[in-house]
């Protein structure tokens, strides 16, 4: 069972965003697993600890973990807590979309864009 240095990874939530906080957490963990920055067997922080760090209610983090478990990204175990199970089942054409997203990031970073600017550009494209 390989275990990455999950301590270097951070989660970031915006409590004023229209996207629910549990959804922000779910999306970010799913993305980290999809990018292989979290791999099978990695242990996530306890919901209580993560909620304390983010200044959230424990139920918010617990809901994000439940959603992740429902999609097969993580598993909850009695002794070891919440553990990464693997990436979610790939959607149709997942490879093409992942390549396009990687191109977006590569081009944007080459031009000196920040992550926020890249996300804004992607959101703008989604609205067309």
């Amino acid at each position: 069972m390989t275990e990455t240095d999950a301590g270097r990874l951070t989660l970031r939530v915006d409590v004023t965003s229209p996207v629910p906080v549990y959804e922000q957490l779910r999306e970010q963990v799913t993305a980290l697993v999809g990018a292989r920055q979290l791999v099978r067997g990695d242990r996530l922080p306890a919901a209580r600890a993560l909620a304390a760090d983010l200044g959230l209610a424990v139920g918010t983090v617990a809901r994000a973990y439940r959603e992740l478990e429902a999609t097969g990204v993580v598993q909850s175990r009695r002794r070891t807590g919440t553990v990464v199970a693997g990436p979610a089942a790939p959607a149709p054409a997942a490879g093409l979309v992942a390549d396009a997203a990687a191109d977006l990031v590569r081009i944007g970073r080459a031009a000196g864009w920040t992550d926020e600017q890249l996300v804004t550009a992607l959101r703008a494209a989604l609205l067309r």
Partner: protein
Amino acid sequence: MHWFIASEVLMSGLFSSVPVVLVALVGLTVGAGLVTTAVRRRQLAAVVADARRHGTGAGGLAVLAGVAAAAAVGLTDTAAGLGSGVSAALVPLVFAAVHTGVLWVGESAWPRQRGAVRTASLVRRRFPAAALRVRRVLVGAATGVVLVAAVGWATAAADGRTLAGPVTVLPDGLGPAGPAVVGPYPGSVFAVPVLAGTAVVLLLVALALRTALVRPAVPGDDGAEAVLRAASVHRVLRGAAAGLLVELGALLVVVGGAVRSVATATEVGIGDGVLSVGGHPALVVLGTVGALAGGLAVLAGLLLLVLPAPRLRPAPPAPSGPPPSPVPAVPA
């Protein structure tokens, strides 16, 4: 005669206060050393400096509250209803319980992130390795207190506060002699409150440790966060372990003294002669060793209180080099 008794009392008081004075001197020396070598506030990130102040402030308040509560119980004989001397027996445990309780509140009130955008590391909480040694001391001291109290309870006289020696049958039909009764001894009168107090201390330690291990992290500096959390855990364990060690030492001193006294042969005058009655040299040695070990445990417990918690190092200097290039505008 009166001045002789007074001087005896004075000398006894002086000798019994030697460990306290010694520990106070060591504490003052260590404290002065820590203050003079501490990382200055300006050498730390503001959020780390604030977190350190919260932790050390709670630690100082816990010591003051613990000492005040222990002194109040000892001086006012709060537990007089449970028996004479029970308050004195509970003083170390009262210190440990109040100290741990204050730290529990302090950890519960640790500052949380309040801004709209918040970040958290995905690192899992682990018990800090720097606190493992103090945890072993705590477990050992608690086990010792339970064992000594249980043995005292099982071997005490029916009154629950004394130890009765064996009855010796004198030769030549002179009948039985003894039993010699020695007190205080941790029978049920002392053992039950001590065991209950130990359970309360251990419960508070479990709650405080659980809170310290999941309290909000100090954002932005994983190294400082690990040190501050280890210091929190160290403080919780240190105060409780110190209280339990002193309690264990006091129990051993009392038990050892009682066993030694009961096991010492008694000289009985019969007619013109003197008869030595009873006497168990092995038990005398055992009692003496127990009392000495108890004295050392008391001293170790007091010294443990001045064992420094893990300390922060200065923040690394900001990387030098050209300023970052300006961020281009987002295209429409």
